[in-house]
């Protein structure tokens, strides 16, 4: 079970968080102008690497901040954790 260092609350158990998938996916600024392909790419085609991954975690039972966490999906080693801002 992960121990996630929340920049606001300190190191907390994974059970306090909700997972939010890959981080840094840019929402098309004008959805209406996006082609079907571009839109489905944004919606569905996310990276699923074995190794380092930037992902969103929501500190649900804490500060209720969406955090961007670097996690190695193979070793579960965590890198930088910061407030998620595009």
């Amino acid at each position, binding site marked *: *079970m*992960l*121990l996630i260092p929340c920049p606001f609350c300190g190191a907390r*158990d994974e059970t306090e968080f*909700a997972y*939010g998938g890959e981080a840094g996916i840019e*929402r*098309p600024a*004008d*959805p*209406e102008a*996006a082609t*079907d392909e571009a*839109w*489905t790419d944004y*919606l569905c085609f996310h990276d699923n690497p074995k190794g380092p991954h930037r992902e*969103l975690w*929501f500190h*649900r039972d804490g500060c*209720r*901040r*969406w955090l961007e966490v670097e996690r190695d999906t193979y*070793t*579960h080693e*965590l890198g930088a954790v910061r*407030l*998620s*801002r*595009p």
Partner: protein
Amino acid sequence: MRRQPFRAAEGGHLIDRSEPLRFDFDGHRHEGYRGDSLASSLLAAGVRIVARSFKYHRPRGVWGFGPEEPNAMVTTGVREEARPNLKATEVPLSEGLEAFGQNAWPSVSWDLGGAVGLAGGLMPAGFYYKTFMAPARWWYSLYEPLIRRMAGFGPAPRTPDDAFYAKRRIHADVLVAGGGPAGVAAALAAARAGARVVLADENTRFGGDLLRAPGEVGDSDGLAWIDTATAELEAMSHVHLLNRATVAGYYDHNLLTVAERAGEEEGAPGAPAMRLWFVRAREVVIAAGAHERPLLFDGNDRPGVMSASAAGGYAHAYGVLAGRQAVVAGNNDSIYRVARLLRSVGVSIAAVADTRSGGDVRDLPCRAGEAVERVLGSRRVRGVLLRRADGRAGDKGERITCDLVAVSGGWSPAVHLHAQARGSLRYDEERGLILPDRAGGANRSAGAGAGRFDLDGCLEEGWAAGIAAAASSGHERAAGEPPRSPDRNAGEAPVFWQTGGGKRFVDLQYDVTAADVDLAAREGYRSVEHVKRYTALGMGTDQGKTSGMAGLVLLSEALGRPVAQTGTTTFRPPYTPVPMAAMASGLLGEGRDALRRTAADDWHEARGAPFTAAGLWRRPRYYPREGMDEAETIDAEVRETRAGAGIVDVGTLGKVDIQGRDAAAFLDLVYANRMSSLKTGRGRYGLMLREDGRVFDDGVVMRLGENHFYLTTTTAHQHEAMQHIELLLQTVWPELEVYATDVTEHWFAAALAGPGSRALLERAAPELDLSDDAFPMMAVRAATVAGLSALVFRMSFSGELSYEVAVPADHGLALWTRLLTEGREDGLTPYGTEAMGTMRIEKGHVTHAEADGRTTPDDLGLGRMASAGGPAIGKRSLELPALRRNGRQQLVGLSVIDPEARIPPGCQVVESDDMRPAPPLGHVTSFCYSPTLGRALALALVENGRARTGQTVYIASPVIDLSMAAEIVSPVFYDPEGTRLNG
């Protein structure tokens, strides 16, 4: 006859001879002492056959001393107290204990299944796969039950386990796994340095190998040093000492589970049967010790063949003679120590056979360069055949009479925790040891578990590991001098050793022989993981603690490649079995989750309402009435509300307060329909979509001011909805100035519904003008209601004229009771979730049964609400071809033609009534008996449903052989024009 014929007159540091205990094994009464394990007391009583083996039902005795035991599987207790698959070596003796040997009927010594053993060649490796291949349909009827019976580990109890199990969570600087010399030294060093230490050990007493054989620390007895050290630790407030506690699992980021058999401790009444600890440790010292390896020879599974260190341990710790006359055989120096221990309690030593050429010791009948070729005796050991270990031709060997064969094939470090933490392993070819290499996570291994087998080395490594672990966690106070021992004999053994042919068992628990491993290799298996599954080697409850290394070496030999290339199977938690009940503790029944109650909950409870769970909330289903059953009561609540007035607690709805300069703009992005056009004092039904276009949640948005909104979400999705809003605000549109606050707990709300609600509310809120002009549909007003300051919304879920009154939660119960008092003469009826559900089905309103995460607004007939395009979440997806295609399932009503019919849960909608398998058109999502219309109604999602209006379809449940005709109609069954909304 003496009651404990194999108990020495004195000795045994773990037992208390002043307290004899009686116990039953397979229906026979025996006696042991306080402090005995079931295994030691059975040996003391002379019981040699303790269980039968898994495949061949061969008689088996005690092999080991602790969790590595592969043979002596027992069930303790009967009926609901029954605990199957325990190792007799790990069961503490208690007064009146009832235990049964496993895998045998009627008893282990007279077993009918044992006949299989005579035909042993019939069940080679991969037997199940070869024999039970085809045809597939025989699997359920024949093979599966047969395998279950043959495989027979202990039967699972059929009644719930009502023992008490508990969980605890703790943070530590240093967790030390294992309380032998290395572990105690590590704990002492770390604790003196100032670290918060948890020391966990599986035995009733700390000491590890010193429990089995004496040793010296400093110039005193080793166990005395252990006692002094643990007493010092015990006195420190920052140290937790856990006995009977196995470190079972090593998980990510240094979270470890420790299974503490707390209930076995004497003088701990009320303790849970097991306490499962979750320890988050900054650093871990793995001092897990090592397991003795067997030797492979014909008949090495016979009762009376035993791990040498275990035989010595029974003598030293319990004063028990594992036999009268022993042959001690092995490939390392530990056999001499064992032989002397056995002799000290009165076992006569027939021979000490050392496979190596040296090692002759004058005081013992040594056989240098000799090994056991074969065991004599069928039900138990009657002797052995010794031969030259180098297999010289013409050597016929010598028969030696004995009833105990104590064997040592060297030691395998217990690298389990190191490997669970994804540390790498390396094979030391010269020493024949698999050793911890690079650590995965913040841990270090020490002592025998890291390949140091001499007492001095264990103390030295443990101490150093404790100092280092404490330093890594920030504690560096001086810890004093490390303990030392004169014992510096590492007792190295040559690589694993075997003799001759015949039935040489590798895995005693699963009856895997050397020939099976060989056969698997000949049949083309190369991967150690495949061989494990093909032969079942290492798959028993002992997880191959004694067999793993032997299997690995045999396979490597058969494949003609080095051991290092073969590699090990994956080590997975738990290290030893942990009862499901301990893992489930706190996850079942009451107390699993926090319970949320609305402000009026006490009133519902006092009225005897049965509750239903809605997320964490509980809600009253209906209010029982004298002389009426459940269905009649619910019907009455519906009828009285539609005819007069009803009141329902809607305090569980999610409530969010939205403020800020960009609040209106933000809501236009969150909801599929426009909110910025709302006038202050008005509200609108809103539909929240997921970005993929599916309906996510719905509710009402009220505009309380220019930059101030109040919105409701469903009870079920309130957390997800709030999380969604926070995601959008924090990551997608952080530039918007919007503040969203979950105020669900702050407000209580009740809905007044029915044509009589206006008159009632007029009396309760005299200054409020409730005329249609002053207070139209979807308006919101601040008012004083029943003397309480409140917000009043005019909206309807029931389809009747209806008002929702919200007050601060602290006033909720007062509002509820005052409105009911006020409405007494109007016949105001409190109704629960059942009547509410019935009325919403009559009106065709959707809930999460319909908005099930797959449906679009158009599927639900709400397409108009989301028609205009825009940047709002989910809107763009609605234009994707898959969401617009013909043939999607759409919401319809089903009107059942037979007025007496009732619809059971889980029904499909099909085209014909012939009950032949066919793809359904859709499924029933909600159903009720409508007291208003006098027949059963259902909502359903049906392929192209709206175009089928008027068609007859069938509501079918093949499981219960049901098929009933229904007509597809509009989902709004009742008052489709909505005239009743005006009262």
